[in-house]
């Protein structure tokens, strides 16, 4: 599963990795499945599925409540997942790791709990034009209610944040909320620089790390983040669980988000007191089996080594760019920065004037899975002057043959629709 030639040149044994993913043995329309949609959701290795299955069949119970043996085991497994996450992202303490349904819920939690307590008319929240809707809409909803101002960092023509505008936009800001890596353009944003700029004006930094944590080593302290969110299902883990990380003093000062069980210490008919961190933010029965799956996914990624994962993706990005443009030339346009070192393993593209939906439909005949649409980033689509893109994204189980299948399918789509 893991292969490291030399410590300094980490590589992945992709053939061995592929064999860990049962779904990649599947055929669609009589052809080998080529999964190039990991930016939407990643496939799950047997290790993750088996960990969840084994836990469910041997130790499952609700957590934190029972005194019986398997309830203890379930609680231990659930909290071990939290500790594993904390170590994986460089959190100061597991108490800073709040489990959520997904990253979207994490952002909504910050907006509702921190935002309601801290944002008033006259305040400013700064986001960017490249955000996923999940990092725009919660702030728009709250701005309509609280009356603060929402600003957006514009983009350069090659799909990077226009940092020249940042000082002006940050003036008076209480929060900068930004993606670490664009789900459309692939752009890796300079998070540390953004953190320093935000902190210089007394603003906090929320990082949407959905496209970062699965692909690059992530250290919340090195990033200078104040809040950070991500989802398990994009990092080989299950759906239904995500993470909000926040600095202890911020989480401590925040009111709770959802009310219910577990998040309380005491309830009387005239009021309640909150539980300690992180349980203060975990109302109701949590995704316990999924936490075990997330733990296993982190183990799997850690065994591969995030440096090797990143190097593999950069190498595939280089290969994809040269294969796509070598075969299809200028009729194919890849959006975003051209340097693979500045982007994640994502390529959104336009091909001739064939609509992304039609591209994706033809590619499906070749069992090649790519996404077509606005990728929940309509403001970015408007900035690019388009309605939609086709997007291919690669991960640890993809290789050059997968990219070749994409290129073959695209050439066929071009022929099918003529031009």
């Amino acid at each position: 599963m893991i292969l490291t030639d030399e410590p300094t040149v980490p590589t992945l044994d992709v053939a061995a990795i592929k064999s860990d993913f049962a779904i990649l043995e599947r055929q669609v329309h009589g052809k080998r499945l080529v999964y190039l949609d990991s930016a939407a959701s990643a496939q799950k290795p047997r290790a993750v599925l088996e960990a969840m299955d084994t836990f469910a069949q041997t130790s499952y119970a609700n957590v934190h409540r029972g005194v019986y043996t398997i309830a203890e085991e379930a609680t231990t497994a659930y909290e071990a997942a939290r500790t594993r996450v904390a170590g994986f992202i460089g959190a100061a303490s597991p108490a800073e790791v709040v489990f959520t349904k997904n990253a979207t819920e994490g952002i909504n939690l910050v907006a509702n709990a921190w935002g309601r307590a801290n944002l008033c008319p006259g305040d400013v929240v700064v986001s960017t034009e490249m955000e996923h809707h999940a990092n725009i809409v919660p702030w728009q909803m709250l701005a309509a209610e609280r009356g603060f101002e929402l600003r957006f960092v514009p983009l350069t023509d090659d799909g990077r944040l226009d940092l020249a505008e940042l000082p002006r936009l940050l003036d008076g800001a209480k929060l900068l909320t930004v993606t670490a890596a664009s789900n459309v353009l692939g752009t890796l944003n300079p998070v540390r620089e953004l953190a320093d700029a935000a902190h210089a004006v007394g603003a906090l930094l929320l990082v949407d790390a959905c496209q970062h944590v699965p692909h690059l080593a992530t250290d919340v302290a090195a990033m200078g983040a104040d809040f950070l969110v991500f989802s398990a299902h994009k990092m080989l883990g299950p759906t239904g669980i995500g993470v909000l990380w926040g600095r202890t003093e911020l989480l401590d000062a925040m009111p709770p988000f959802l009310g219910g069980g577990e998040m309380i210490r005491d309830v009387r008919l005239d009021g309640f007191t909150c539980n300690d961190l992180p349980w203060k933010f975990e109302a109701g029965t949590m995704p316990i089996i999924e936490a075990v799956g997330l733990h296993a996914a982190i183990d799997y990624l850690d065994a591969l080594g995030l440096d090797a994962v990143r190097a593999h993706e950069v190498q595939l990005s280089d290969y994809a760019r040269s294969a796509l443009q070598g075969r299809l030339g200028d009729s194919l346009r890849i959006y975003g920065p051209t340097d693979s070192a500045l982007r994640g393993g994502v390529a959104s593209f336009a091909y001739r004037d064939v609509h992304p939906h039609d591209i994706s439909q033809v590619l499906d005949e070749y069992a090649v899975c790519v996404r077509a649409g606005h990728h929940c980033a309509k403001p970015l689509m408007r900035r690019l002057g388009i309605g939609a893109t086709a997007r291919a994204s690669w991960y640890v189980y993809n290789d050059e043959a997968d990219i070749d299948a994409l290129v073959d399918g695209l050439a066929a789509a071009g022929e099918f629709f003529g031009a």
Partner: protein
Amino acid sequence: MPGLEDLYKEIILDHYRSPRNRGELAVPPAHRVEGFNPLCGDEVVVYLEVADGRIEDLRISGQGCSISQSSASMMAAAVKGRTLDEVRSLSRTFKAMMSIHEASLDGDAGTAPEASAAEVADGLTAADRELGDLVALRGVLKFPVRIKCATLSWNTLLQGLDEVAAGVPPAEA
């Protein structure tokens, strides 16, 4: 490529490559209405001129995939000059065809009476005859996520007709 021909019939590709009634009309007197497919970002803009209970003129703009754009083009060709009653009947028949359930569950699913002697003779139902070229879009049913692409322009047209009937002022361009 087997399968794809079911979806991308020649007449659909023809309307996609050479869309009919594409463009805009001056607002007013025309009524302008927009439709979006939130899943894929497709949008269609319908410009309608209704007079004497009839669609006197109609233009389509917007952007989208081959299915949404060809469906809009075929719709425009089918409804221009028709009475509002005819258009509503046609839209019911079309939407019934594009719905796996509606055709059997919706008692008001357009003009689909008992098969006549003529139908038995040529294999076409009355609904097929009413739909004409639009029947080519039936293949979309095999690709359920694309059904919304095919019905987008019709839903937009119906919204426009409702707005005209209700006297809603034309939306700003």
